[in-house]
C-alpha cells in the first residue's frame, strides 16, 4: 500500500503545489509526499493525452514541475511510476465503489449504486478512466496483474448475488470477474474515446448486463430503469 493515496486531500494550501526553491524549511517528508503526488498527477495527465507509449520520464517530470533527477529519486522507470500510481488510484476507485455499494440495503440496488459511482467518477475525471481502465493493458502484463487484483477485490461483492437464485449459486467461479472485466473495458473505452460526459447514461444498460445473470432479464431491467 503506497503511503499517499491520491484521494487524501493535501493538508497544505494549493500554492505549495510548486515548492519554492532553496531552503523552505518544509519537513522533507512533506516534500516527498508532495513530489510523488505531483508525479502521479502528471503521469495520469500525460497518459491520458499521449497514451502509455507516449509517456517518458522527461515529460512526466516536466509536467510535475520537477527535474528528471527528482523523478529517479522515487522511480526508476515510467513503468514503476505507473505501478505505484495505479495501485493508489485502483485502491481509491475500489474504495469509492465499495462505499457506494454499502449505501444501499438491497443487493441489486447496491450493485447499481456502485456502477453509478464509477460512471460519475469517470465522467468527472476522464483522465483517470484512461489511466486505470485502458492503458494498463498497453503498459503490459505486469500492470495487468495489478488490474487483476482490483477485479478480484470487487468480485466478492458481486458474488453475493448468487444467494438470490439456485442457478446463480452454481455459476462458474469466473462469472463475476468476467462481468467486472467487461464493464471496466466498456467504460474505459468510452471515456478514452472522448465520450466521458455521456458515461452516466450507460447506467441502465450496464446495470441490466450485470444483474441479468442473477435476476433474469425482466427483474434486471426493472432495477436498471429504477
Amino acid at each position, binding site marked *: 500500500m503506497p503511503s499517499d493515496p491520491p484521494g487524501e486531500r493535501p493538508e497544505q494550501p494549493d500554492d505549495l503545489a510548486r515548492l519554492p526553491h532553496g531552503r523552505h524549511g518544509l519537513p522533507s517528508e512533506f516534500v516527498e509526499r508532495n513530489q510523488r503526488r505531483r508525479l502521479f498527477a502528471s503521469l495520469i495527465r500525460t497518459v491520458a493525452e499521449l*497514451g*502509455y*507509449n507516449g509517456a517518458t520520464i522527461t515529460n512526466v517530470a516536466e509536467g510535475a514541475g520537477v527535474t528528471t533527477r527528482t523523478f529517479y529519486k522515487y522511480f526508476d522507470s515510467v513503468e514503476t511510476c505507473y505501478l505505484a500510481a495505479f495501485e493508489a488510484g485502483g485502491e481509491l476507485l475500489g474504495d469509492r465503489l465499495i462505499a457506494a455499494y454499502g449505501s444501499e440495503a438491497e443487493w441489486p440496488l447496491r450493485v447499481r449504486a456502485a456502477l453509478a459511482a464509477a460512471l460519475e467518477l469517470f465522467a468527472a475525471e476522464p483522465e483517470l478512466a484512461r489511466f486505470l481502465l485502458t492503458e494498463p*493493458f*498497453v*503498459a*503490459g*502484463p505486469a500492470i*495487468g*496483474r495489478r488490474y*487483476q487484483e482490483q*477485479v478480484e477485490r470487487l468480485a466478492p461483492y458481486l458474488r453475493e448475488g448468487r444467494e438470490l*437464485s439456485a*442457478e*446463480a449459486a*452454481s*455459476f*462458474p*467461479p*469466473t*462469472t463475476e*470477474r*468476467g*462481468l467486472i*472485466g*467487461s*464493464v*471496466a*473495458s*466498456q467504460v474505459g473505452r468510452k471515456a478514452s474515446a472522448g465520450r466521458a460526459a455521456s458515461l452516466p447514461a450507460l447506467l441502465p*444498460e450496464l446495470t*441490466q*448486463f450485470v444483474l*441479468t*445473470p442473477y435476476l*433474469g*432479464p425482466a427483474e*434486471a*431491467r426493472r432495477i436498471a430503469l429504477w
Partner: protein
Amino acid sequence: MERSPSRLSQVKPGGHPLRREVLVHHQRRRVLTAVAEVAAERGYRATSVAAIIERAGVSKLKFYENFSSKEDAFLAAFDEALAEAAQRVATAAEAAGEDPAARVAAGIAALLGFLDERPALARACILEAPSLGAQAGERRELALAAFAPLLTGARGEGGGEGGSNLEEAVLDGLYWLLYEALSTGKPKRLRRLRPALVEFALLPFLGPAGARAAASA
C-alpha cells in the same frame, strides 16, 4: 510448441531446388512465428528486430524485404492469427448445425483449441498486442467484427433484448477472462475454461438455465 523452423532454414542460397517465391514465403512465415515467440517470452516492448531475426534464422536484409519494422511484423502475425482463429470458429459453428447455443459453444471450443495449439501466439495476441496502443485498438475492432455475429445468432432466444452492445459486452468479458488466465502463473490449457466461457457468453442471451444446458452439452 510453435512450428519450429523447418529444414528450409538450412537451404543454401543458389543451391536449393525451391523456387524463390517459395523460399520467400517460408522466410516470411518463420519471421511471423519468431515475432510471436519472442514477444510472448520477453514482452512486445522488449522485443527487437535483432532478436526476431536471430530466432527466425533469417538475415536482416530478408527481414526488411518483408516487413518495415517489428511493429509491422507483429501486426502481420496478429492479423494472420485472427484470420485463422475466425476461420476455425466459423467452421466449427457451421458444423454444429442450426442451434445458436450449440454454435456458440462450438465456436468457443474451437477458439480455445487454436490458442492451446499455439501458446506463444496466444500470449502475443492477447497479452502483448495491446502494447501497440492505437494500432491495437483497430485490431480490436476487427476481432469484434469477426466474433460478434456468432453471438448475435443467440439473440431473440429468451432474454436477448438487453442492449444494443450486448455482443461487445460479452466479448469484452471473454477477452478479460482469457487475459486473466494467460497472465497468471504457469501455462495451463485454456480448453479447461470452455464450460465457464460458454456459460458466460450465453447467460445474457439465454438466461442461467439455457446457458448452463449449452455449456454442459
